[in-house]
């Protein structure tokens, strides 16, 4: 089968600081991330031949991108895949270049969540449904409540006492905050203790406030070109090894088939991604990973879904420190959604931004040693019917 492997390279990336950016508009965020990416790639916006915008709530149509950037009548597409929107924008740009339709493409993800006056983000009853009319009878469930359903069932399935489970989840929060404290662009840059996480107010048992990622403003951008042209722009382009997306049919909620102890789309996407990138033993072969830790329980389940821990064995790997900066596979070295923050449309590209910088050896005190392959995993939708995107990138073309 024809694959995307080594056909396209990322030659520039940008990312704003994430956080409560009261003094920045959506347009400001788009402009700041895009211009950083252009500068990084050593080119101007006039060189971009096609663009993708990913945003969930912060804009409609391609005009939301062309207008702030004053793009000059080039093809622009807006995409939306809930929290996996950022990765979806990247996919659009990468496949356009791979098809030969254009040579240089831009992907931008943006979200401004802090102007609503709400706590948290939208409930999940809007997923996969028309926004123009509804029966209003679908249950309204906040995102932490949705993931609490996963936690309760995961604990039950693997006979983990709630208190022990909460402590394991707290270890994940502590790890991501330790990583985030080394990242000047992160929303939160404070370290946490297990005690603090456990004592935080409960949002949806067993999840407390500090099991939840930040609700943030931010934007991130990538510029891609054909792999053969990449070194014309820079010495250290990052090559796309695989780009997988798996979208579930939501059968999990319709029937009794789903166990609420894993996310099937994560499993399917990772299989596609490893196959496309010719990875046999992901835990050994991957140097660094960014995963969708919207809630600590999801990161725990991802360890298993992506084949790094055995089923029900994530506990052992958490306790062994496998996914810390010094561990076998450092995960969420930039702090993850938990600490870097989660502006929905921007997050997928932000994950890729960290992997890109890690593979180039430019992440300072949180740099992993001798990286070759990195994975970014972005989930949109619900645990019972999601959109899982995985990008695997490497710093050597045609390696293996």
């Amino acid at each position, binding site marked *: 089968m024809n694959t995307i492997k080594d056909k396209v390279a990322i030659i520039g990336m940008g990312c704003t600081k994430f956080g409560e950016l009261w003094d920045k508009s959506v347009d400001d965020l788009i402009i700041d991330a895009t211009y950083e990416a252009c500068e990084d790639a050593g080119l101007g916006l006039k060189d971009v031949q096609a663009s993708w915008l990913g945003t969930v709530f912060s804009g409609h149509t391609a005009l939301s991108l062309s207008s702030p950037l004053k793009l000059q009548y080039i093809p622009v597409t807006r995409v939306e895949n809930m929290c996996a929107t950022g990765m979806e924008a990247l996919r659009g740009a990468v496949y356009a270049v791979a098809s030969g339709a254009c040579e240089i493409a831009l992907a931008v993800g943006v979200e401004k969540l802090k102007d609503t006056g709400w706590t948290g983000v939208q409930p999940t009853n809007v997923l996969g449904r028309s926004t123009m*009319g509804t029966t209003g009878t679908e249950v309204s469930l906040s995102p932490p*409540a949705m993931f*609490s*359903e996963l936690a309760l069932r995961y604990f*039950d399935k693997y006979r983990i006492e709630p208190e022990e489970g909460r402590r394991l989840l707290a270890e994940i929060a502590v790890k991501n905050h330790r990583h985030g404290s080394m990242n000047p662009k992160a929303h939160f840059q404070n370290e946490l203790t297990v005690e603090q996480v456990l004592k935080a107010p409960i949002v*949806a048992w067993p999840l407390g406030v500090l099991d939840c990622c930040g609700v943030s403003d931010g934007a991130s951008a990538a510029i891609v070109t054909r792999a053969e042209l990449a070194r014309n722009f820079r010495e250290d382009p990052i090559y796309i090894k695989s780009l997988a997306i798996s979208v579930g049919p939501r059968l999990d909620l*319709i*029937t009794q088939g789903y166990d609420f102890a894993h996310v099937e789309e994560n499993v399917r996407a990772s299989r596609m991604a490893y196959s496309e990138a010719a990875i046999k033993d992901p835990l050994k072969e991957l140097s660094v990973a960014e995963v969708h830790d919207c809630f600590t329980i999801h990161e725990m389940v991802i360890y298993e879904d992506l084949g790094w821990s055995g089923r029900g064995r994530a506990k052992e790997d958490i306790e062994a420190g496998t996914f810390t900066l010094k561990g076998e596979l450092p995960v969420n070295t930039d702090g993850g959604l938990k600490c870097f923050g989660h502006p929905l449309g921007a997050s997928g590209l932000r994950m890729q931004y960290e992997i890109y910088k890690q593979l180039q050896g430019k992440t300072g005190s949180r740099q992993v040693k001798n990286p070759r392959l990195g994975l970014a995993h972005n989930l949109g939708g619900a645990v019972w019917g999601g959109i899982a995107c995985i990008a695997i990138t490497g710093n050597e073309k045609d390696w293996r």
Partner: protein
Amino acid sequence: MVGITSYGICIPPYRLARDEIAQAWKIKSLGGERAVARYDEDSLTMAVGAALGCLKNGLKQVDGLFFASTTSPYKEKQTAAIIAASLDLPRETRTADFTDSLRSGTIALSSAIDAVKSGSSRNIIVAASDCRMGAGRSQFEQLFGDGAVALAIGDSDVIADIEGNYSLFGELLEAWRLEGSPFVQSWEERFIVTEGYMKTMQTILSGVMEKYRVTPKEFAKVVVYGPDVKSHANLAKRLGFDLRTQVQDPLFESLGNMGTAALPMMLVAALCEARPNDRILVANYADGGDAFILKITENIGKVQEKMKKRLEKKICINYERYLTWRDLVPLEEPKRPDIRPPSVSCLWRERKSVLALYGNRCRECGTVQYPPQRVCANCQTKDRFEDYKLSDKHGKIFTYAIDYLTSSKEAPALIGVVDFEGGGRIMCEIAECEPSEINIGMPVEMCFKKLGEGGGVLNYFWKARPVS
């Protein structure tokens, strides 16, 4: 023989101690407690609950549904039609609302008796339900209780034969409520009790006994409406009934005055204890009165359920919760996105899956799915489905959420993933349950509730509740 063929009741599990109210206002407590409908209940949902009980007791072939209440959720729009749709009754069912009078329940009952006697109907459910409010600090606030009763009237498998009935009207402005006012008001007590209740009830009770040539001693039970404990007892004594053995307790102590459902609820309490061949005298009051003479048949044992069991589930609430549920205190809105109002055309299109909770089952692989699908979630076969009703199925909580980040009136919201016996899964709210009760594997049944109001549209749907 035309008579009562089945009955069902709906009593919300929530109880407010009258001492709590009295303490808040530094006034005299009437003692005991009152039943309180949660914010997701109203006269309509409680009527559905009672009618479901009526159907569960073996009732078949319903061709009429009469709703009786002074608190219909819509001022213009039939409630009985919504109830009939949620009960999945056939399209030819005769529906009617009997409203405005506290006597609506027995007026509806008389009409049902006439319809069955005339042969135009075979089995009519009369659902009387009320959720009335007294103003803060008033006697009514303490006295009222919320609840519903459904009585089925038919001509076969009768449990209580209606041997006679007698009605008269009377005009006296006693208790009333104007358009736009949420609270019941009344005239001065001495006048309305002596001139209204006592005189009218004496006339109607002696009238019915005269008409059918019966004496007080012939009745095993006398079920008579009372506006309050004292007047009720005085009336019974004055008419020569033995308060201790003959007179049905008006249930004020445990439930409160349930408006149109008050007398029917007392009647059900009497039916629960009745034995074959017992004669029961029933009389309702308001704008005149209705009286009935019932004779219990051998069938009574088939449908008899002990009321005590129904009253077992109790969740005590405080006065602040009551005020919140009734929107009587302005509260800070949750800092969450507004709930989008429902679309009437969407609701109409999905009426079968929304109101009667129909899913469907794949004819190829047998997988039950909700909401109903066109392409099977299991085998992907297209358009090979049969309807499959879930509202009457029991289930178990597979997983759940206690959601503090909710837009609902009360945090936390309880949400459960319910797996039904025989297949099918739904994620829905869990009602009549406190956060500490819920756990994986908890057995649940479905109940019809009000989700809320948006754009002037009241939205009703099913929730799960712990099996009672």
